[in-house]
């Protein structure tokens, strides 16, 4: 068995630990297969010793091959730069497993997802309401991610029950799914006593499009375009993670030029979104000048993307084995010149914001998310960093970021201001990173390694602007996709918003919401 140090580490906490198999399919992945009775303890021990939330927990329908469902639980081991997956097979008759949610909250949403899409029951889960297949339109007993699903079987429809807060003077404010702005749909139900919010329940899933099922049966090359449409403002991070998974399966290592280019594009995506977030926060605090100014900077970055790749949102740039757009000397000059102007404009924007007392008063100590809450909920990415949790895949899985001495940004206070400051510092760091990467670009380097897709399983990952984007991919003997599990950071982080707004007044909700700036479509899939 591989990795004896992990086994001995688990055995210290869990003496009866007896794995069926431990393998290391890739340098950055360890897979531990256990018997179903050991699954829960193994996961809880890994959660404790790695200080990692559940990064992904999902089911596979392998009834045709092995007569069972498989459950995989993925943790991240930052110290050793690797991902640890615990897996088990469960029999297909009355499928179920012991719920982890009560001992480890970060498993909760994933278990609800498994229950609604596969009909595999997490026994003992305190809340099995459906997330995406809304009871009002989707009959019970239909599990779309099962391999034998072929169309809806009409059954009784149900109704979603919101949590109720009772008490003298408590009233509810329902908002959505269609909101006032140009934004995605979601339902927010505030329970308010006087002015402060005492409970916020967020119901999402309105944009569910069944993306994971659409991946199945597609070739990896065809599916790149689909991954770009999971969350439109993170299209590059998604295609990055997806292509990386496919490349790992095929044993392809991308040319160095492509690795630098991917990092440049990933940072450009971070920049336009961060400046958009900064402008959005100014707008939601009623400060329109910097908001308009930020939108000019955002437009400049989108136009730069267009000049470099032919796409404002960096679509159709990634492909399996590399990239399709090169940055030659002329484009490099355009890139560096534009960055210079963008940097100047951004500095002015920051000065305007920081010198406004009324703006700073609005964002300071508003919407505090404590580190303990963020850790308990298993939050990731930008939101976790603003609450003081050091988590960034670019630091712990550096790749080419090692060559440019990437500096991770964290803040301690966890309020709207902290999230604003993380964005501002990351924007500045991204400019520096792109400038460094640009010096490493070769005059004419190879952009792509071509190789057929093999059969296998792998995890692809990228630190998008919101946080880690994960793609767990399985291909069949013909190279077509068998299963693709997508985890957008928004799926972890939406629950954080419910806690950050507590004690704040409803008029500050848009500001808190914008400081999180989560994806509806990435969550709803």
């Amino acid at each position: 068995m591989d990795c004896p140090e992990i086994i001995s580490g688990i055995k210290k906490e869990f003496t009866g630990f007896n794995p069926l198999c431990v393998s290391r399919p890739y340098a950055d992945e360890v897979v531990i297969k256990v018997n179903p009775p050991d699954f829960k303890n193994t996961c809880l021990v890994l959660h404790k010793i790695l200080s990692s939330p559940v990064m992904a927990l999902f089911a596979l329908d392998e009834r045709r091959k092995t007569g069972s469902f498989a459950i995989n639980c993925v943790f991240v081991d930052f110290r050793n730069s690797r991902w640890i997956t615990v897996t088990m097979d469960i029999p297909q008759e009355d499928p179920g497993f012991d719920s982890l949610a009560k001992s480890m909250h970060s498993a909760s949403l994933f278990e609800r997802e498994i229950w609604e899409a596969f009909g595999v029951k997490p026994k003992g889960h305190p809340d099995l309401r459906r997330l995406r297949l809304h009871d009002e339109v989707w009959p019970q007993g239909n599990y779309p991610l099962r391999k034998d699903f072929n169309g809806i079987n009409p059954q009784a429809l149900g109704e979603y029950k919101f949590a109720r807060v009772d008490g003298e003077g408590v009233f509810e404010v329902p908002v959505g799914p269609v909101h006032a702005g140009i934004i995605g749909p979601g339902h927010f139900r505030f329970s308010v006593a006087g002015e402060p919010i005492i409970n916020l329940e967020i119901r999402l899933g309105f944009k569910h499009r069944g993306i994971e099922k659409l991946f199945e049966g597609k070739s990896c090359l065809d599916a790149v375009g689909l991954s770009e449409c999971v969350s439109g403002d993170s299209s590059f991070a998604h295609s990055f993670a997806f292509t990386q998974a496919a490349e790992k399966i095929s044993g392809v290592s991308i040319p160095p030029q492509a690795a630098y280019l991917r990092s440049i594009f990933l940072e450009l995506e971070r920049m336009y979104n961060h400046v958009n977030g900064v402008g959005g926060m100014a707008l939601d605090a009623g400060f329109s000048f910097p908001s308009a100014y930020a939108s000019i900077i955002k437009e400049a970055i989108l136009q730069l993307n267009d000049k470099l790749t032919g796409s404002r949102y960096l679509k159709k740039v990634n492909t399996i084995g590399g990239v399709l757009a090169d940055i030659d000397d002329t484009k490099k000059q355009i890139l560096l010149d534009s960055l210079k102007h963008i940097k100047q404009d951004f500095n002015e924007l920051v000065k305007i914001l920081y010198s406004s007392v009324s703006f700073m008063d609005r964002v300071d100590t508003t919407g505090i998310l404590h580190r303990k809450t963020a850790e308990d909920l298993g939050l990731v990415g930008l939101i976790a960093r603003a609450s003081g949790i050091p988590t960034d895949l670019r630091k712990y899985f550096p790749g080419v970021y090692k060559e440019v001495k990437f500096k991770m940004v964290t803040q301690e206070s966890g309020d709207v201001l902290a999230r604003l400051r993380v964005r501002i510092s990351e924007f500045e760091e991204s400019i520096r990173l792109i400038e460094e990467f640009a010096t490493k670009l070769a005059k004419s380097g190879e952009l792509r390694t071509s190789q057929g897709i093999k059969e296998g399983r792998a995890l692809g990952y990228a630190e998008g602007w919101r946080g880690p984007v994960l793609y767990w991919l399985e291909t069949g003997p013909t190279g077509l996709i068998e299963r693709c599990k997508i985890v957008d950071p928004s799926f972890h982080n939406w629950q954080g918003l419910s806690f950050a707004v507590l004690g704040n007044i409803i008029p500050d909700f848009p500001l808190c919401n914008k400081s999180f700036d989560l994806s509806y479509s990435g969550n709803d899939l």
Partner: protein
Amino acid sequence: MIHILKTRILKGVVTRHIEPELTGQIESSGSELKTLILKKFGRSLHIREVDTGSCGACESEIISANNPIYDLQRFGINFVATPRHADALMVTGPVSKNMLLALKKTYEAMPEPKFVITCGDCALNGGLFKDSYYTEGAVKDILPVVLHIPGCPPSPLMIVQTLLAFLQS
């Protein structure tokens, strides 16, 4: 304040000149409706946007069309916060089953005369998502669509040009 004034003066006017250009498609019923709209509204148009499952890129571009560079508002076209104030409904995304009711209710809440514009390839026929178990297909099978703005996502320039061309008599 001094920073705002300085930036304002140094930046100057960033808004660009835009000529109307019809890159989209107008449905046959569109031309009759157009006459009615022009009669009723002149060149002012208030639009309510509804996202029925888009990836978010179309929304981002619609917002960009309102930025100081494209400045859609100078042509009398405004995005409004409620369907009660809207003349037109702009729909993005394939219609997810969960959004079908909300889409219909939003349309019903609008005063007459009213019409529907689809924005982006998904709204035309479901795009990449048309074979999904959870989408309802083209918006035009659900509501009377008179204008489509193509693209994945359509650029803000295309959004402005198409709307202007549609409104021009």
